[in-house]
Each structure stands twice: as C-alpha cells, then as structure tokens.
C-alpha cells in the first residue's frame, strides 16, 4: 500500500514537472515549480529526512516561486505573433524523448543491475545540529556564499530589467 503511495507521488511529481516545462504561461510555470517542489518535499519526508523536506518546502516551493512571480510581473505579455512563433515546432524536438526513455528502461531492466548494496550509513546516526555546525561548517559557509551570489545576481539582473523600462 505504502509502495503504491510512493508510486503515486512519483507520478504526480512527473506530471507536475512536465506541466512546468511544457506550459506556455510563465506564471503557470512558476506555480508548477512550486507544486513539483512540494511533492518532492513530501517524498523526501517519507524517505525519512524531515529536515531536508522542510528546506525543500521553504526554499524551492516557497521562496523561489515568489521570486519568479515577482520577476514575471515586470514583463509584458507576449504578442500573438510571438506566441505563434513560439508554438511552432516547439515539441517536435522532443518526440524522440519518450522512446529513448522507454528503450532505456527496457534495457536497464534487462541488464539486471546489482543495485542493492549494504549501506554503511545505516550504522551511523548523527544529530543534525552536530552535522551542520561541527562537521560541515565549511559547507555552511559555502551555502552562505551561494546565497550571496544569488542575491547579487537577482539585484544586478532585476536592476537591469528596471532600467530597461
């Protein structure tokens, strides 16, 4: 039963991700991203990593779509001609993708890969705070810098768009 739930969640994830990519409206795309992230958070939660799930939910499903939507609000909608231009042949390039995926799946299942390995990780359990503050402090600083860089990017690029207006 629970296995079926996982499957269901994965399917929802796939569908929402596809919708995010395929939809022609930027707003819908942003919403799709939020939805995908939310489903992902659920999956992560179910896999036993609540902290990661919370992070995923807050950052990817919350913060980023907000940024996107605020950015998109600064753009003007497409003209009809642009839409037509955009629509033409847009999906044709990806026609092969399902086949590749299908073929690959078949192939991999035939290979009977020995994927089940004993997990040494199971033996060690760390406290999350210990991990973050004592063992991975450098990573934390790195994350801070990434955010810094991201902020710079947003500032620079948004300023750019504003100056265009």
């Amino acid at each position, binding site marked *: 039963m629970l296995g079926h739930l996982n499957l269901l969640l994965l399917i929802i994830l796939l569908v929402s991700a596809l919708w995010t990519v395929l939809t022609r409206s930027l707003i819908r795309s942003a919403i799709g991203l939020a939805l995908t992230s939310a489903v992902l958070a659920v999956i992560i939660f179910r896999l036993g990593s609540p902290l990661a799930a919370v992070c995923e939910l807050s950052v990817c499903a919350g913060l980023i779509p907000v940024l996107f939507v605020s950015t998109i609000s600064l753009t003007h909608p497409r003209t009809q001609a642009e839409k037509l231009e955009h629509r033409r042949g847009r999906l044709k*390039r*990806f026609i092969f993708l399902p086949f*590749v995926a299908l073929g*690959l799946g078949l192939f991999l299942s035939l*290979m009977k*890969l020995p994927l089940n390995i004993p997990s040494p990780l199971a033996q060690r359990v760390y406290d999350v705070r210990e991990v973050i503050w004592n063992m991975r402090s450098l990573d934390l600083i790195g994350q801070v810098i990434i955010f810094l860089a991201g902020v710079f990017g947003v500032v620079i690029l948004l300023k750019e768009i504003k100056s265009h207006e």
Partner: protein
Amino acid sequence: MDSILLWPILVPLLGGLLVLAVPRSVRFWKESITLLATGVNLWLVCSLFDKNLYYFWSWLGFGNIEFSLRLYHFSSFIVIAAGAFAFLIGLYSLSFMKYRNYLRQFYAYLLWSLALANGAVLADNLIVLLFFLEALLITSFGFIAIGSKDSMKTAIKAFIIMGITDICLMTGAIIAGYLSGTLTMSNIHLTVSGLGGLAFILMMIGAIAKGGSMPFHSWIPDAAIDAPLPFMAYIPAALEKLLGIYLLARICLDLFQLQAGSWASITLMTIGAITILLAVMMALIQKDYKRLLSYHAISQVGYMILGVGTALPVGIIGGLFHMINHAMYKSCLFLTGGAVEKQTGTTDLSRLGGIGRKMPITFGAFIIAAMAISGVPPLNGFFSKELVYDGALKSGAIFYLAAVAGSFFTAASFLKLGHAAFLGKISEENKQVREASPVMLIPMIVIAAGCILFGVYNSLPLQHLIQPILSVKQLAGERFAGWPASSMLVVVTCVVLIGALINHYYGVKSEGSGLKAVDHIHYAPGLKGIYDRAEKRYFDPYDIGLKLAGYLSQITWGIDKAVDWIYETAAVSVSFFAGRKARELYKGYYASSLSWALLGFLVIALYLMVTLNG
C-alpha cells in the same frame, strides 16, 4: 714525380688568364700571348715526345681521387697533335678574327680548351679525365656563344648534348672504378660483361659523343653556322675528334678488353656505319660551305668508330690513323671555308662560284684536303680508309659496304662543293675578291702539306706514332705502313671514286650547274620526303630527346600538382568539412546540447556496465 707534366696544362691556362687580364686597349697583346703560349706548349710537348713520365698528387686523399698524370706514347702523340692544331689555328685567327667582337674571350677559350684537352689526354685517373673533359663544355659553350647574336641557342644545344653524355661518361667511369677498385686508368682492366658492359656502354657514349658521332651530332651543323669558324676547325674538327677517339681507343684497348665479334664491338661498328651513311647523305645536299663540312665532320667520325670498333689491330690502327688524318684535312677544309668567308663575306654556295682563280692557294689547299677526305691515293685519307675497310671487311661485309658507300657520297659531295664554290661562273659581287692574307694561308698550306706527307710517307705516322699504341702482342708482327696489303680493296676504292666522278658529270650535265650536281639523288623518289623531313629536323635526336623530356616533365608536373592538391585542397577541405559537420550537430538549442550530454552519459554508463564483469 715529373712535375713538368703540369706545364702543358698550366701554360695555356695562365696564358688564357693573362689574355683576359689585360685591358682591351692594349693592342697585339692577346694575339702575341696566344701565339706564345701555344708555341711554348707545342715545343714543350714535342720535347716530351715518347717519354714515359708520371705525376702524382694526392688530391682529396680518399675515394681514390688522386691527381695523377701520365705521359706515354699514345698520349704524347695526341698532345702534340692538339698543340700543333692550336698553334696553327691561333695563327690563322690572327687575321680571321680581326675586327670581331669578344676577341679576348675567343683567345682565352682557345687557350683554355688546349689546356683542358692536354689535361684530359694526360690524365691517368678517371676523375682527372672527367674533370678536364667536362670542363671543355664551358669553353665550347663560350666559343659558340660569342659567335653571333643568335648563337646562344646552338651553344645551349651543344652544352646539353655534351653535358648529358658527359654525365653518362662519368657514371660509366664510376662503375668502372667500382668494379676495378681503383680509378687509375693504367690499372683498370675490365671485361665487357654484366656491370662492366653497362660501364662500357656509358663510357662509350661519352667518348663517341665527344667525337661527334650520331646520335649526338646535331649541334655540329648548327654550330657551323653560328660559331666563329676557327672554333669549327679547332674544336669539332680537331680537338674533339682527337679527344673522343683517343678516349674510345683507351676504353676499347686499356680499360676494357674489347673482343672482336663481341656485342660491344658490333654495337660500335653499327653506330659507326650508320653515322657514316646518314651524315654523308645529309652532307650531300647541303647548300652551305660550312654546314656541308660539318656533316662530313660527323660522317668521318663514323670511320674512326667503325675502325676502332672492329677490335682488330688493322681496324684500330686504321681508326686512329683516320683520326689524325681527319683532324688535318677537316681543319684544313674549315680553314679554306674561313678564308672564303673572310674574303667573300658568305659561305652560301649559291652565291659563290668561280673564285678559284681569285684564290688559287686556298683552292689548292682545298683540293688536296678534299682529295684526302675522299680517299684519293696517295693522300693520307686513302691509306687510313683502306685500313678501316680492311678491318670492316674482316668483321662483316655489311660494314664494309656501308663504309664504301660513304666514301662514294663523300667524294660526290666534295666534287659538288669544289665545283660550286671554286669553279663555274664568278658572280658579280665576287669580282673583287682577293687571296686571303698570308697568316691565314700558312696554316692551310702547312696542313695540306701534312696531308700529302702522311699519305706519301705513311710509315712515319703509322710506324712511329700509331703502331706503338698497340702492344707487340696485339700487333702480332703485322705491318700496316706502305701500300695497302689487299689490292682488291684498292681497286674497289678506285672504282667507287671513278663512279663518284661519273655521277658528278652526270649531275652537272642534267642540272646544268655544280651546285645542283647531286639533285638527282636529293630529289630521287623516296629520298626526297626523307630529306625534307630531315631538313626540318624531324629526326634531330636532340629535339626528340627534348620532346621526351618535355613529356616526362609534364607527367612529373602532374605528380607534383597531385601532391600539392593533397595539401592545398584535400587536407583543408576535409578539415573544414568535418568542422562544419561537427558544428551542425550542435545547432545551439538547449535541447540538442542536452541530448548530446545525455547521450554521452548513456554511452559512458553502458560502457561501464559492459566492463562491469570484465
């Protein structure tokens, strides 16, 4: 170590340099230097006659390349002859070349040619021989080039023919040296077989080409027109015959033991016979004094080759005797031609005629020389030809027949020449012609006298000069001097000469002039077409050779272009094609970039799976 052997080389060499070094304005300097140098040289070589001298200098010190000179009977005889001709022609040129351009060069070339010829004859090492022999190319080139405005083409023709044959000679000499392990000529004794045969052929080509035999002859008639006349008397008529036949004799006698009846002998004789016939046929129809003589210069060398090629003592003696005789009468003939040219301003037979009375001494010298070349007894040409006939008949009747036929046409053409030039009606423009100057006459008279002397008193050259060249064993007690041994041959010769005379009268009668005396042969059915083509030089081996070289170079040019195409076009377009195709795979879409990345990943993953258990 007889360093006196260097003097015959150094004296003319330095003389030539002196001639060039002195300013043009100093009068008589070049002439006197020339006479002095040739005179000293003549005296020197005469004083050395019949001595055995040897000079050696370790030249490079490896590869058997030594500077060694050797004087012995044969070579001393040749250097004397060369020295005498040089002196006489130098004397002759005093008057003939007066008021001409490039005088200093002319005399320098004359002296240098003598020096080189002496060097080549005295050489006892093959490379020394080659050194001097090939250096003659340059002096001949210069000689012809200064002749007239358009003579450069002929000079180049001569140079190319001689240069190519000299390379053959060089290769042959190298092979000979390789086979015998030494380059010292007196130590080389090879047999004509296998590689030795190749060496023989190559060296023989060099020798007969030097002598001016067919098929290496075609520059001589051209040079007759373009080059200064003393050059013709000096180089093709005298020096080159001396050198070429000397060399041929050395090759056949010393370096290789030519066997009578061997293929090499037959080859030589064939070349000789063909040369005799074809060249004399061409000589027959010439309408120019010098050109006619030049064809005879070719034709006569055939006798020598034929004689030496028999590899029989009688033939060899005859050939060598003919060599010295020919040098005499042919230079005498050229000198008379020069006198005529100098006095009348032309050598075109149609514009000459009747000047015999105006120039009696010249005419007389001409008659003697012409009789000598036609083989009229008791002149020297008669005796040498008889010896050659004897040898030829012993080797094969066909060679004899060719030689005799050659004799017939020779006589016929000289009858025509004499008739057309000296007899008959004198033309208006030649009314004022006078006899040539004494300086020009002396050489002619001396040489003509020599012809008579060597004929009447033929044991002098034969016994003292030529017979000792062959070893006692080779001679086997035979004697060649005096009246020919076989009276049958003499009869045939006389019949042929009379036939030629009759033919001449017939020709003059039917055509009405001496000039057209042989037109019945010229325009005979069958011959006419061949003659026409020959006159248009269809048969010139030089032109054919050049054409062949042209085809060959077109082929190699194609190869060259093909190689270049690989670099210029093929390599470049393959690279550009590949580059463009590779770029087309990435159109710049996200999709294509991503797909390629995905594909790459899949390939790598697959590879890892495949190697998983391996």
